[in-house]
């Protein structure tokens, strides 16, 4: 027990020190490494958060775009993945197909974004919200299908059978009987998918020409030959982009415990 706590304390320190260093810099407290011994300089202020908007004038707009795209992509992901996961979970033959979704989820975006950007350009979907949202949803859908399939497999089919006996149709059963029963898994999947979409770089990068940007795309040119952002401004931008997802995860930490890659496998062993 004592060893466990010691280990967790060390892990916590190692994993959080870089973030703490960044957050204090965002508030203007930076190290003075040239002093002997090294010391800290600067005074506590919120100014650097305002400076982000000066260094990157479109930052707040980019933050809004990121939020809208990631939220819409997460919604599309769940909307298309849930019915498919249900169909896969309730047909015995389909179980063999399920591991293929893990392979699709592992496929790096770089493997297909070059032709994707070409197809989107020809379809006039470059620099459009629809192009970005659907492409992001396609990145995350395979993982969502796999996780939701596992959650539905854990669910006894007797509830749905009872609903069908009562005369409910397929969609009614899907939305009003099965969905509420696995709601925590669906919420957990939606949040993980939102985080992944929020942090995507390549997909929005190749589908835009600078007219709309997400935060990761903006960050990818924080340093160019002409400029390098001041550390406190960059730290403030990093802090701002971490806060929304951190809050989301903290708020839904209970539901997130239901994000399981395992249930799919366990039930297929039966």
């Amino acid at each position: 027990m004592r060893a466990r706590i010691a280990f967790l304390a060390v892990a916590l320190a190692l994993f959080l020190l870089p973030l703490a260093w960044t957050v204090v810099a965002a508030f203007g407290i930076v190290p003075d490494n040239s002093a002997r011994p090294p010391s800290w300089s600067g005074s506590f202020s919120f100014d650097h958060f305002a400076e982000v908007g000066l260094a990157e004038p479109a930052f707040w707009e980019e933050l809004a775009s990121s939020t809208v795209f990631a939220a819409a992509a997460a919604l599309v992901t769940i909307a298309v993945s849930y019915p498919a996961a249900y169909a896969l979970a309730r047909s015995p033959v389909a179980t063999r197909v399920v591991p293929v979704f893990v392979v699709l989820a592992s496929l790096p975006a770089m493997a297909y974004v070059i032709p994707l950007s070409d197809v989107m350009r020809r379809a006039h979907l470059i620099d459009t919200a629809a192009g970005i949202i659907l492409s992001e949803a396609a990145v995350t859908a395979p993982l969502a299908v796999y996780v939701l399939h596992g959650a539905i497999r854990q669910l006894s089919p007797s509830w749905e059978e009872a609903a069908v006996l009562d005369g409910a149709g397929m969609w009614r059963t899907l939305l009003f009987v099965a969905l509420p029963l696995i709601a925590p898994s669906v919420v957990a999947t939606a949040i993980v998918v939102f985080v992944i979409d929020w942090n995507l770089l390549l997909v929005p990068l190749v589908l835009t020409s600078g007219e709309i940007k997400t935060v990761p795309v903006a960050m990818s040119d924080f340093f160019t030959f002409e400029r390098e952002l001041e550390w406190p401004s960059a730290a403030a931008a990093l802090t701002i982009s971490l806060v929304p997802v951190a809050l989301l995860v903290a708020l839904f930490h209970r539901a997130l415990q239901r994000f399981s890659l395992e249930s799919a496998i366990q039930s297929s062993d039966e």
Partner: protein
Amino acid sequence: MRLSRRDQVVLCAPLAVLLAGWLVGPAMLGLLATFTNYSPFTTGVRFVGLANYSAVVQDPQFSAAARNIAVFTAVAVPLELVTGFLIAYALREPLRGRAALRVLLLLPWLVSPIGSGVMWHYLFASTTGIAGYALGFFGISATSPLGDERLAPAVVMAVEVWRVAPFVAFLLLPGLVAIPRERWDMARVSGASSLRQIVDVALPSVRPLLLTVTMLLTGLSLGSFDAVLILTGGGPGNATMTPALYSYASAFETNDWRSGAASAWLIAAAVLAAGAVYVSLTRERDRE
């Protein structure tokens, strides 16, 4: 509920459209195009066989990238698995403040790969960084290890382990929590050490889960792009060049679309090969 063939098709149709239009379809068109001289700017497309692939494979920069990513995957993925497993193992039993610990220990994964690159760029810089601060106490002025050809690859791997291990812990934790109490008790009563408990109880129970996580991490690693882009940009020299950086730079920066598309498909081929192993391993287990 009994689903008819028609129901199944209806339920899967939206997913099929999304994946066909925005993932599998473009990927397949891209594959076909790599055997031709196609680029968005060519007129008169003709078949060129394996010419695009042989051009990529013969490029010393690509071979350096392929070597780097092989080492990167072979080192970083096991480190991520071990670190993530140990964190999950330590969190498996109830503990005061466990919910908060879970959230805090997931924070590094919430930082985008590109954000992590920006952050560590400054954290390794001599004037703003952690190492510069710590070494200052010994009177040493640190220079960024990212500029050192021998250190840069290790540093890039360490940063990626920092970001990904927390996600591994998050994915493994439900599996470890689900292990029935009796199994731990039995091991403890028979006097098994912590190491024996891990080997005899924990690992066999989460083996299927570990397999899936390993597949996801392998794909993630083989496609490393954002994490390296800002940190080193592939340098110094080609020390941290990856196939994905090579592919992106070819297609979008030097306008060598054909090399970009062909090298991207080599990444896809590597992931699909790993995927074939993964699928056959899961089938084997199902048969047991």
